[in-house]
């Protein structure tokens, strides 16, 4: 990127650019610059108030980008492919379904009576347990074609969404109100408590990944090689699926489903990082996610003066990108 503009790039710059650490530092600088721009452009009234409001949305974007980016890269490693993502597999539809079922059977009264933290914990535990079962069923047995799994995932997603809608139609209006408030927070105006909880959770999940970074690299080689190299494959994979579940559930609860975001970010991260080592790809994916969300929001707000339609733009661009990936993959 940088070297292209120079007429005759010196060997030194090229050598520096080859190093993942240099690329990552550049990305960190870009993210910091974007955050500063976002915080300080066009402050209409009190600076302190604007900083507080905008700081919260920056935090939301960072949390979501981290959760989606990191979980998608891990998911790619676990499923040994680069076009599946937890979202496309109908995963966040599943999360919404579970929350709906909780409200359906226990009522919003119990929903409200429990404090937010307990509810949060209950939903996450249920979610993680169910998703581990689902993943074992889908990926645990005989190896199936990626395209078949993808189609199954998409159809499962439709099934979950239809089922959710059915249950929501059966709810009484008050329960429904509580549920939709809990499900659809916005990226630019997140709920403060929920945001902090999510941030803590995602940070914890990231911390849990750190000791597994090298194991993830080994998993890239495939199951037989990984087992040969002394990895307790089954246990590690289940643990990682659990971490992925937590991250996806957390980010879905915060901003709702963003279908193609993880796909774009993860694939960009592979080519940008120039390596498949997770110590580099994971942070790169998270930072690129921040660049996409924050940069996209800035462009939409400042240049086109739209707000809130970022997810549609992502959906559109992501869909085209996905078609490209699938068709290219089919070509090989």
């Amino acid at each position, binding site marked *: 990127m940088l070297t292209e503009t120079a007429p005759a790039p010196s060997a030194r710059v090229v050598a520096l650019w080859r190093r993942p650490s240099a690329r990552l530092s550049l990305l960190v600088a870009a993210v910091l610059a974007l955050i500063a721009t976002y915080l300080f452009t066009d402050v209409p009234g009190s600076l302190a108030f604007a900083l507080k409001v905008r700081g919260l949305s920056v935090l939301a974007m960072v949390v979501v980008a981290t959760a989606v980016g990191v979980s998608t890269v891990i998911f790619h490693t676990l499923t040994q492919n680069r076009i599946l993502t937890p979202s496309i597999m109908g995963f966040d539809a599943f999360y919404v379904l579970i929350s709906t079922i909780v409200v359906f059977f226990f009522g919003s009264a119990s929903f409200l009576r429990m404090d937010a933290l307990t509810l949060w914990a209950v939903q996450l535990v249920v979610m993680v347990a169910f998703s581990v079962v689902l993943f074992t069923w889908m990926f645990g047995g005989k190896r199936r074609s990626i395209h078949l799994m993808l189609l199954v995932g998409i159809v499962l997603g439709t*099934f979950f969404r239809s089922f959710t809608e*059915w249950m929501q139609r059966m709810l009484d209006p008050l329960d429904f109100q509580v549920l939709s408030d809990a499900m659809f927070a916005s990226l630019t105006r997140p709920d403060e408590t929920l945001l902090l909880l999510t941030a803590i959770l995602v940070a914890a999940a990231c911390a849990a990944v750190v000791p597994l970074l090298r194991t993830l690299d080994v998993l890239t080689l495939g199951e037989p090689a990984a087992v040969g190299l002394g990895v307790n494959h089954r246990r590690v994979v289940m643990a990682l699926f659990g971490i992925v579940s937590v991250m996806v559930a957390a980010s879905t609860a915060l901003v709702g489903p963003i279908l193609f975001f993880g796909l774009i970010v993860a694939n960009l991260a592979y080519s940008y990082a120039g390596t498949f080592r997770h110590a580099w790809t994971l942070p790169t994916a998270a930072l690129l996610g921040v660049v996409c969300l924050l940069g996209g929001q800035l462009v939409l707000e400042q240049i086109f003066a739209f707000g809130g339609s970022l997810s549609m733009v992502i959906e559109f661009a992501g869909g085209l990108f996905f078609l490209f990936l699938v068709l290219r993959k089919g070509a090989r």
Partner: protein
Amino acid sequence: MTLTASAPTSAPAPTRPRRTWVGALIGACLVALVGVSLFVGVSDVSPLSLLTGGPDSSAAYLLVASRIPRTLAAILVGASLGIAGLIMQMLVRNRFVEPGTTGVSEFATLGMLVTIVFWPGMAVVGKMGVAAVFGLVGTWVFLRVVRAVPVRQLVLVPLVGIMLGGVVGAVTTFFAYRLDLLQSLGQWAQGSFATVMQGRYEMLWVAGVMVVVAWFAADRFSVIGMGEEFATNLGLDYRRVVAVGMVIVAVITAAVLVTAGMIPFLGLVVPNVVSLIIGDNVRRSIPWVAGLGAVFVVGCDIVARVVRFPYEIPLSVIVGIVGALLFLWLLLRRRSRAH
């Protein structure tokens, strides 16, 4: 059923029994369900009230103005969507496509949005026409894109179609959002017969006509399903038959969209189930597909009306649940050969 990518239509299999009794069963089911559909609802319409009230009673009025149109609409939608799916599967030579998994429905919805924006006062026929033209464009785009799929991979084709639909859907949502039309578009797109009454379903007869056209052209579609070279060798004008098929699919999709909304998986599941029972001869399977489709939709509509009585659940929700499960079963049934 031969699920290979190259030839979904095996030659008319002589080994298959005619299974007349299953056909009779479908017919009996349809008659029974139509009976239930006519007499289930919030207001009391029963054979008894019809007899005691005479021809001018409120029960008789309700029957003619609401129950009969609704039941007819369900029959027409089920039959025509099943046929649309069957023809689409012949055109693409793939078992897993239908208007909903090829982006045709999404293109037609975009057409609806265009009429809402530019000609809000347009008559329903005009809306349907525009939606059909968009559906036709959608079919064409899909066929072009599928041609770019180099290897004939069985599940890749619907996957590409679904994503194409997603992209077009995102465009539609974006403009609907910008123009504050998201809600009215949502009402159009959600599959339901709740608003169907006398005067509001007649467009569906156009879809019914398309079913008849498909019936007449049935043998040609069988041949098309064997591939372009084979069809041309038999002296068939391949391109013209494909064009007729595209028009049938687009018009059915548009007619159903304008009156009842989007109904997922129907065109996919019904032809597949029929093919399991009697094989792949299109001329023989068309009445089966139409009948089974009608049974499916009338049945789901009754469930949608009964399950939260006296309120209604959208039909598309019920069809989505049942259809998705059936589709999953179809996908995973032959796991050893799917790759």
